[in-house]
C-alpha cells in the first residue's frame, strides 16, 4: 500500500557495499517528512548519533520513541535493512540527529544488511553511539559491544533494553558495575514503554560533550587483524572470554530460561496443533474481511453516497462541475476509501503475527518445503511482508545471503497478493460470487478470497521452482535463524500501527488515486461523455488485444491506470459507469450491481485471474529492478508475469463462457 513517493526513491544497490549506506529510508513505512536518507558524506550541522546493537534488541523501537517516527518494528531479527535518520531534540534544546541501523551479530558481515552497519561504523559519520543491549541475552550482546567499543573511539552509552522482560524472568543486574567494566554509561530502558528514556537522553547529552571516549581497549590490541580461520576463531573466543568475565561480575542473578516461549512452541510447532492454529487464524481473518468489515464499509458507502447525491441536487452548480465532483472525485475516492476496513483487518493480522514472534517460526516450519522448490526458508520473510506491499518485501531481500536466491525471490514476489489487490478482488467477488453459507458460519465469499491468496502464493512458489531449477541453479546456503522469545503485542502498539497504516492508505487515496481519478474523469467526459470520449478512443484502441480475454473497452480503459496503482481499477470503473449514468456510482453495492449486469460471469472471472498475475504497479517493478541489478532480469520479470496473466485469463474466459 505504502509506495514510495519519487522523492524518496532511495533503495540501494546492495552489491556495491561502499554505496550501501548512502541510501535512504529502507522502509516505505517511513514517515516521509521527518525520516530522511542518511548520507555519511554530508556535512554535519548537528551531532549525529548511531543506534548500534544485535538484531531484535529494540533499536528501532527506541528510534521511534526518541524521534517520534514510525519505522517498522517487529519481533524477529533483520527487520531493519537500511539506515534511516531523523532529528532528535536533546534536553537543553540542542538539535541532534539519530540514525537507526540494521542489527548485526558481529562486525564481520554475513549478509548485506549487516554490511550496512559495518560500513556505517567505518564511515566517520557519527559523533556518538547508543549501544542497544537485549538484557535477556546479555552475554551475546556484551560480546558484540566489546567488539564495537574496541573498533572505534566514538563516545558511547549503553541502553540496557527490555529490562521489563529480564525482570519478569528473574534476572538481576548491577548496572554500575557494567558501566565501570565497559567504561561507558549504562542506562536500563524499556523501549516499548518509554521507561528510562529521559535518563538516556540526559546521559547522551553529557557524553556527547566529551568529544572522544578515552579509549581504554577492553582487550589487548592484536598485532594484526586476524585473517585465517584460526585467528578469527581465537579472536571470537577472546571476546567471549571477556564477556563471560564481565557477566560474572555484573549479573547478580541469572534468570530462568524462557519457559513460556518453549510452552507456546510446543503448540505452534506441533504438526497437528500448529496446522490447526494456522488454518483457524487465516480462516477467521478472511471471514472477518468479508463479514465484519461490511459494517463500517456500509457507513463509508452511505456517507459518500450522501455526498454524491447532495452535489447532484445542487441546482446552482454547472453540469460539468457537478459531474466532476460527483462522478469524478466522490465516486473515485469514495469507491476506494471504502476498502479501508478490510485492509486494516489484514494489516492487523500481519502486525500481530510480526510482533508476537511468529515470523521466524514460519521460516523454521517451511524451510524444508521451501527446499523442495530450491529456495531458502528465509526467503519466506520477504514473501510474507509482501502481502502488505511488495515494495518493502523486495527491499528486505537484503537479508538473504545468496544473490541467486535474491533474484529468484524478487522475481516471484509480485505474485504474492499485496493489499492493493483487495479492493479489486472484493468488488469482483461481491459482484460474481454469491455469499452462501458453506459450513459453520463460513461463507463462500471469504473462502473465494482465501482461494485467491492461495493461488497467488502457490504460483509464486511454483515459479520459484521453475527459475531455480532451470535458470538459477545453485547450492542452498545454510540455514541459521534466531527464534525470538514470544512477546505479547501491546494493544497500543498494534492500534498505533493500524492508525499509521490507515493514514498512509488515506494519504494514498488523497494523492495518487485522487489525481488519477481526475485524469480519468477528464478522459471519460471529453470531448463528449461516454462513447465519444478520449477514454473510449483509447479503450477501443487496445480492445483488439484484450478481446480474447473477454474485456471490452471500458475494462481496457480501467486497466491502463492500474499499472500506477492497482486499486485505481475500482475508482476508474466507478467513474466510467457514473459518467454514463444518472445516479452516482459512489456506492460500491451499486457499482458491483452495475458490473454484474454489464459483464458476463466469464469476464468477471477472467479479470480476477488477470489481477493475480499481471505485472502491475510501477513501484514494484522499480524496486525489483534495483534489487535485480540487471535489465535482462527486469524484462524477464515483466514479460513472464504478463504472459502468465494473459494466458491464464484467456483460459479462464474460454472455460467459463
Amino acid at each position: 500500500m505504502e509506495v514510495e513517493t519519487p522523492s524518496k526513491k532511495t533503495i540501494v544497490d546492495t552489491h556495491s557495499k561502499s554505496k550501501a549506506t548512502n541510501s535512504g529510508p529502507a522502509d516505505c513505512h517511513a514517515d516521509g517528512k521527518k525520516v530522511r536518507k542518511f548520507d555519511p558524506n554530508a556535512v554535519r550541522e548537528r551531532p549525529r548519533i548511531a543506534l548500534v546493537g544485535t538484531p531484535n534488541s529494540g533499536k528501532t523501537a527506541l528510534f521511534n520513541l526518541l524521534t517520534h517516527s514510525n519505522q517498522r518494528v517487529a519481533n524477529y531479527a533483520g527487520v531493519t535493512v537500511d539506515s534511516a535518520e531523523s532529528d532528535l531534540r536533546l534536553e537543553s534544546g540542542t538539535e541532534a540527529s539519530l540514525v537507526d541501523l540494521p542489527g548485526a551479530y558481529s562486525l564481520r558481515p554475513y549478509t548485506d544488511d549487516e554490511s550496512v552497519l559495518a560500513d556505517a561504523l567505518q564511515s566517520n559519520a557519527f559523533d556518538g553511539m547508543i549501544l542497544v543491549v537485549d538484557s535477556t541475552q546479555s552475554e551475546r550482546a556484551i560480546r558484540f559491544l566489546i567488539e564495537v567499543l574496541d573498533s572505534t573511539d566514538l563516545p558511547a552509552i549503553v541502553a540496557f533494553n527490555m529490562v521489563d522482560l529480564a525482570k519478569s524472568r528473574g534476572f538481576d543486574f548491577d548496572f554500575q558495575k557494567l558501566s565501570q567494566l565497559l567504561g561507558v554509561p549504562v542506562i536500563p530502558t524499556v523501549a516499548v514503554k518509554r521507561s528510562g528514556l529521559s535518563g538516556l537522553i540526559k546521559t547522551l547529552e553529557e557524553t556527547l560533550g566529551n568529544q572522544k571516549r578515552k579509549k581504554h581497549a577492553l582487550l589487548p590490541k592484536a598485532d594484526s587483524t586476524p585473517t585465517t580461520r584460526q585467528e578469527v576463531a581465537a579472536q571470537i573466543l577472546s571476546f567471549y572470554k571477556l564477556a563471560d568475565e564481565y557477566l560474572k561480575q555484573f549479573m547478580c542473578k541469572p534468570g530462568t530460561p524462557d519457559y513460556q516461549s518453549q510452552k507456546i512452541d510446543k503448540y505452534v510447532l506441533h504438526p497437528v496443533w500448529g496446522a490447526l492454529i494456522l488454518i483457524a487464524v487465516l480462516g477467521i481473518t478472511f471471514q472477518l474481511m468479508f463479514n465484519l468489515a461490511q459494517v463500517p464499509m456500509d457507513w463509508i458507502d452511505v456517507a459518500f453516497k450522501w455526498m454524491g447525491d447532495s452535489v447532484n441536487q445542487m441546482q446552482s452548480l454547472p453540469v460539468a462541475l457537478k459531474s466532476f465532483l460527483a462522478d469524478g472525485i466522490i465516486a473515485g475516492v469514495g469507491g476506494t476509501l471504502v476498502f479501508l476496513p478490510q485492509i486494516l483487518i489484514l494489516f492487523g493480522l500481519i502486525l500481530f503475527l510480526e510482533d508476537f514472534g511468529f515470523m521466524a517460526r514460519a521460516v523454521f516450519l517451511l524451510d524444508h518445503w521451501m527446499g523442495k522448490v530450491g529456495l531458502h526458508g528465509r526467503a519466506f520473510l520477504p514473501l510474507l511482508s509482501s502481502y502488505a506491499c511488495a515494495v518493502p518485501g523486495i527491499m528486505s531481500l537484503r537479508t538473504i545471503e545468496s544473490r541467486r536466491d535474491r533474484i529468484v525471490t524478487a522475481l516471484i514476489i509480485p505474485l504474492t497478493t499485496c493489499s492493493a489487490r483487495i479492493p479489486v478482488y472484493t468488488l469482483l467477488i461481491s459482484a460474481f460470487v454469491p455469499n452462501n453459507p458453506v459450513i459453520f458460519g463460513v461463507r463462500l465469499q471469504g473462502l473465494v478470497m482465501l482461494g485467491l491468496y492461495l493461488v497467488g502464493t502457490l504460483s509464486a512458489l511454483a515459479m520459484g521452482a521453475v527459475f531455480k531449477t532451470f535458470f538459477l541453479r545453485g547450492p542452498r546456503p545454510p540455514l541459521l535463524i534466531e527464534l525470538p522469545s514470544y512477546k505479547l503485542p501491546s494493544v497500543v502498539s498494534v492500534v498505533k500501527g493500524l492508525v499509521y497504516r490507515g493514514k498512509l492508505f488515506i494519504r494514498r487515496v488523497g494523492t495518487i488515486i485522487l489525481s488519477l481519478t481526475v485524469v480519468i474523469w477528464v478522459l471519460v467526459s471529453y470531448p463528449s461523455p461516454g462513447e465519444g470520449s478520449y477514454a473510449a478512443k483509447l479503450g477501443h484502441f487496445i480492445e483488439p488485444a484484450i478481446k480474447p480475454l473477454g474485456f471490452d473497452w471500458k475494462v481496457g480503459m480501467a486497466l491502463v491506470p492500474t499499472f500506477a496503482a492497482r486499486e485505481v481499477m475500482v475508482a476508474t470503473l466507478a467513474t466510467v459507469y457514473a459518467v454514463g449514468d444518472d445516479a452516482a456510482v459512489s456506492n460500491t453495492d451499486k457499482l458491483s450491481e452495475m458490473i454484474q449486469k454489464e459483464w458476463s460471469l466469464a469476464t468477471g472471472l477472467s479479470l480476477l485471474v488477470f489481477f493475480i498475475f499481471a505485472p502491475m504497479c510501477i513501484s514494484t517493478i522499480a524496486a525489483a529492478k534495483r534489487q535485480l541489478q540487471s535489465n535482462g532480469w527486469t524484462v524477464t520479470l515483466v514479460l513472464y508475469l504478463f504472459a502468465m496473466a494473459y494466458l491464464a485469463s484467456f483460459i479462464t474466459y474460454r472455460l467459463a463462457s
Partner: protein
Amino acid sequence: MVLNSGPSEICSLGSLNPGDQAEIVALNAEHSPEDYFRRLLEIGFLVGERLEVLNEAPVSKNPVCIKIKDATYALRREEADCISVKRLR
C-alpha cells in the same frame, strides 16, 4: 573396559533429538562454509558450551531448534553436523 554408551556418548549435533541436552566437545570447520562456521562461533557455539534441542520441524524432522546461551536458533541437521557433542542426560 568401559562401554561407550548412554549419557557420555559422543555424536554430531545433527543427530540429537528434541529433549536432548548436550555439551559441545569439538568443532570441525573443514566441511562447512567459512562464513557460516564463523557465525556459529559468534553466536556462541563454543567448545564446552551446553545446549538443548527444543523442537524439530514437523514431518521432515529438519531443521531443529537449538537453545544455547539464552537464545534459540533454527539449524538444519546436516549443517549442524560440523559440531560434535557429548550427550548429557
